């Protein structure tokens, strides 16, 4: 799979990013449900870019580690940054509308979420979803065979 780069400048770009993310997830062998998780997480993280930074970029690529395939989504912007990343990830910001809910959701939907942010210098969110070989679909397929 070629690396996919989607510039994020408007909410229409967010739709493009999540559609490309879903297609890439399916292409590397993630289940339909996991592909929906990926698309939903991308939607949240892309919204954080348009809401808080104005513009940025989402890069989607395949990663292989220890014989396992996964999908990595990197969202980068050069916006105002997040003053206290740890507090956001612990969901201490009560707002259900802003930055907090998006990163919270991404953490629940993806296998790993890493946030690097520096006030005034932007934010990079790296999210990973791994293919699971004990997938329910695979199990059902084997039973049916």
């Amino acid at each position, binding site marked *: 799979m070629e690396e996919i780069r989607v510039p994020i400048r*408007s*909410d*229409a770009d*967010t*739709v493009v990013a*999540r*559609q490309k993310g*879903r297609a890439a997830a399916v292409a590397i062998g993630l289940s*339909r*449900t996991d*592909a*929906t*998780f990926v*698309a*939903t997480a991308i*939607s*949240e993280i892309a*919204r954080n870019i348009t809401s808080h930074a104005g513009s940025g970029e989402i890069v989607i690529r395949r990663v292989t580690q220890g014989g396992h395939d996964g999908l990595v989504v990197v969202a980068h912007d050069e916006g105002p940054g997040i003053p206290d990343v740890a507090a956001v990830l612990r969901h201490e910001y009560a707002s*259900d*509308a802003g930055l907090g*809910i*998006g990163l919270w*959701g991404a953490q*629940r*939907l993806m296998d790993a979420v890493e946030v690097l942010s520096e006030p005034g210098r932007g934010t990079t969110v790296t999210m990973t979803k791994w293919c699971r070989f004990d997938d329910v679909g695979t199990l059902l397929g084997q039973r049916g065979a």
Partner: protein
Amino acid sequence: MGVSILKQRDYLIASIQSALTDTEVVQLRDALVAEVARHRSRGVIVDVAALDVIDSFVSRSLSTVAQTNRLRGAKTVVVGIQPDVAVAMSQFGLGLADVHTALDLEAGLELLDG
């Protein structure tokens, strides 16, 4: 915007035809509230079967429609949430406050008639 809104008896039926941007979600939210008031509708069905993602923004907007309509005495029923989307919403913790749900349009109409 890929949404059609039809009037049927005392109800409005909004069918989403394609993926929506946040701007279109806001337009739909405001249109649903305005049309319910204009037609004095007793219920609204929103068919979301075409949505392959329901994230926090869509979820919150549907809840806002439901809460606003409830204050006017109208019920809001969301129908057709795709199974994968339901799993993702559940994992995320998006519960659609104040929104009724049904399997499809027919079940949604039954719920409103009930």
